[in-house]
């Protein structure tokens, strides 16, 4: 096994990463049980350097390896054939560099030229197709869904995205900024901005204060609380339990308005910056956060109890959109959805920092269905509220720390990786610098990149009318996928 072993938020010299011949590289990826979190190419003079990032969730280690491919190469043997977890990474690589993975079972671009490609079709007298999108009925982002149905029953759902493609990775290289990082995926502002800031800090060897890290962690948990509560409301809204929908929506407002008091923006924009944070949390604000969160906790507990007592709610949630643990593992699902399928991965605990090692990772008894996806949100809201309380206590100890430190220049020929557990799951940012200390490649992986395929599998065998319920349970990002 020829890897460089790294930790989260660490700077690595590019020369330390082994470059091995492609055959060995491929064999390594096919054989391993490690989970891929990055597989992408970068222009490397005459060649394309293909990087692979694998993680060992139990040990909290990242394994990095690379291989060179000729820029004029037309094709290479696909890795997906042996290890299905690479199916989407290879499609992305093919789209970005035009080198064809031969033997890939479903080689379509992810984000470009969608119109020119066929859908996965089913034939038969009673089979009909339902096409939805890109513009949907609600106020949501665009994407196209193609259902293959017999009557009400869905046999396959193919999801075609790319409508939101704004060329973010190129923009990040050209003109990186915190404001751009925040706007990649506007519902995960804190997660994205933290990941970007941590990558830049690792690359420039900037040490931010404990206080700034604590404020980031508090904001991240508050983001999780707010969005989870909103989603619980949205799930209940889609099964016409309107009391739940409205109560959760107004409870979410309390949390994001508190965020506004911290940072001047309801979603925490402008709070986090390369070098620390822009706004402090003083004693008064800390009290305010605590009192709001206890109110939120009481309402969420009451509302959840009332909702789950209702048999009409339970009959819609239970056994709807089941994704088995095996499927979830095969497709490499991550984050909240993986946990709702019984896979205990959570990068807050797996890649521990100085705060989370004191917190306990509690097991969740997954039922793999829509109920499981509702229940895990409830569990995480309650957990996160207690984390915020503990983090605020830690904040008292470091009251006199600076919140913002002077940032250094980026160090040349380096690579850094940052994994942040946003509310959806792991947000991965990877950045490479060139010999002048400028960014040469920026790679982002949203949890939705993996999880859209989970939604597709959840729909199989279900009625098409359950699609909104499943979709809300996953609540995936279009913008984070399309970049």
């Amino acid at each position, binding site marked *: 096994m020829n890897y460089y072993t790294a930790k989260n938020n660490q700077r690595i010299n590019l020369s330390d990463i082994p470059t091995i011949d492609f055959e060995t590289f491929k064999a390594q990826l096919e054989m391993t049980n490690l989970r891929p979190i990055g597989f992408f190419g970068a222009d490397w003079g005459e060649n394309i350097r293909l990087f692979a990032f694998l993680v060992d969730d139990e040990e909290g280690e990242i394994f990095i390896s690379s291989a060179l491919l000729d820029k004029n190469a037309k094709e290479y043997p696909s890795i997906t054939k042996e290890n299905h977890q690479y199916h989407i990474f290879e499609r992305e690589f093919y789209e970005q560099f035009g080198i064809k993975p031969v033997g890939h079972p479903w080689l379509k671009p992810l*984000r470009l030229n*969608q119109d020119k490609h066929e859908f996965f079709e089913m034939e038969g007298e009673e089979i009909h197709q339902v096409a939805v999108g*890109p*513009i949907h*009925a*609600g*106020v*949501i*982002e*665009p994407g196209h869904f193609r259902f293959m149905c017999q009557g009400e029953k869905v046999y396959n759902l193919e999801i075609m995205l*790319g*409508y*939101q*493609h*704004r*060329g*973010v990775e*190129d*923009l990040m290289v*050209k*003109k990186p*900024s*915190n*404001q*751009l990082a925040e*706007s990649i*995926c*506007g*519902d995960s*502002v804190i997660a994205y901005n933290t990941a970007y800031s941590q990558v830049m800090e690792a690359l420039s060897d900037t040490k931010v204060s404990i206080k700034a890290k604590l404020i980031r962690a508090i904001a991240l948990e508050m983001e999780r609380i707010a969005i989870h509560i*909103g989603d619980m409301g949205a799930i209940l809204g889609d099964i016409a*339990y309107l*009391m739940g929908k*409205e109560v959760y*929506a*107004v409870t979410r*407002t309390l949390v994001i*308005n508190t965020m*506004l*008091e*911290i*940072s*001047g*923006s*309801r*979603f925490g*924009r*402008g709070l986090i910056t390369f070098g620390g944070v*822009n706004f402090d949390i003083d004693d008064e604000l800390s009290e305010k956060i605590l009192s709001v969160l206890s109110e939120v906790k009481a*309402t969420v507990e*009451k*509302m959840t*109890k*009332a*909702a789950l*007592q*209702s048999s009409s709610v339970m009959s819609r949630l239970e056994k709807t959109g089941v994704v088995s643990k095996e499927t979830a593992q095969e497709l490499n699902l991550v984050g909240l959805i993986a946990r709702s399928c019984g896979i205990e991965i959570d990068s807050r605990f797996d890649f521990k920092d100085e705060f989370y090692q004191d917190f306990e990772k509690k097991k969740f008894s997954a039922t793999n269905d829509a109920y499981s996806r509702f229940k895990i949100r409830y569990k995480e809201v309650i957990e996160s509220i207690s984390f915020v309380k503990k983090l605020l206590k830690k904040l008292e100890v470091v009251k006199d720390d600076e919140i913002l430190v002077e940032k250094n220049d980026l160090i040349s020929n380096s690579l850094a990786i940052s994994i942040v557990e946003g509310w959806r799951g792991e947000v991965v940012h990877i950045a490479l610098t060139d010999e002048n200390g400028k960014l040469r490649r920026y790679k982002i992986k949203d949890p939705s990149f993996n999880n859209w395929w989970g939604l597709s599998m959840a729909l199989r065998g279900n009625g098409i009318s359950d699609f909104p319920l499943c979709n809300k349970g996953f609540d995936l*990002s*279009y*913008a984070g996928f399309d970049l």
Partner: protein
Amino acid sequence: MFETLKMKLVQKKQYIPDIQNAQMRSQFRGLPVVKDNMCCACNQCVNSCPTGAISLNPLKIDLGRCTLCGQCKMMCPNGAIDFSNYYKLGADKRDKLIITSETTKEEFEKRAIQARKEIYSIFNRSIKFRQVSAGGCNGCEMELNASSNANFDMGRFGIDFVASPRHADGIVITGPITKNMAYALEDCYKSVPEPKVVVLCGTCAISGGVFQESTELNREFIDKYKIDLYIPGCPVHPLTFINAILDFIRK
């Protein structure tokens, strides 16, 4: 069922009664306050701005490009730039969004959105929109959804988002308009029956925002069709959105 009904008693009234005079928290970054006489033209604000919204001599901020991140305020050594918590930021002309030393809250409120006779006579205080996200990051989309929740409840003023362009009086665009969405956006616009209005919602829609230098955008739509309302913000606050629409359809 009784548990569910009990929640209603616990929750009580949640809506904001007077939405046009709602109190905004003081920390909110709204209408910029610009003082040209305090500007030393050091360029620090211009360099820190991610979208190129600031120009000097005289000091001006283009609210159509500004993401309200507050970076310029932090960089300014003389305090020439500040952000008030004034949230009614909508305007009916693009050039009204340029904020100078002369701009005050009262003056901006008076001139930003002129009542149009035909708008009132056609829509008669009720307007339905089809929302199109064309590269929006889900920030503005979440805030537009929040505009219909029990707190802001814009439905009580006759403002709603509808599921089909055929049922709509106009479209609300969010996002910088990507190449991949350009066709669908125009298609949707054409499906709205005449007469119709176009509202640009959020900094990205108005100017491209942080994405303005992207090669993956296609903003022809903006030049091709008449824009009736510009609502800046990153993302647009529900109060900003609702008040802009209320001003737009008033008598």
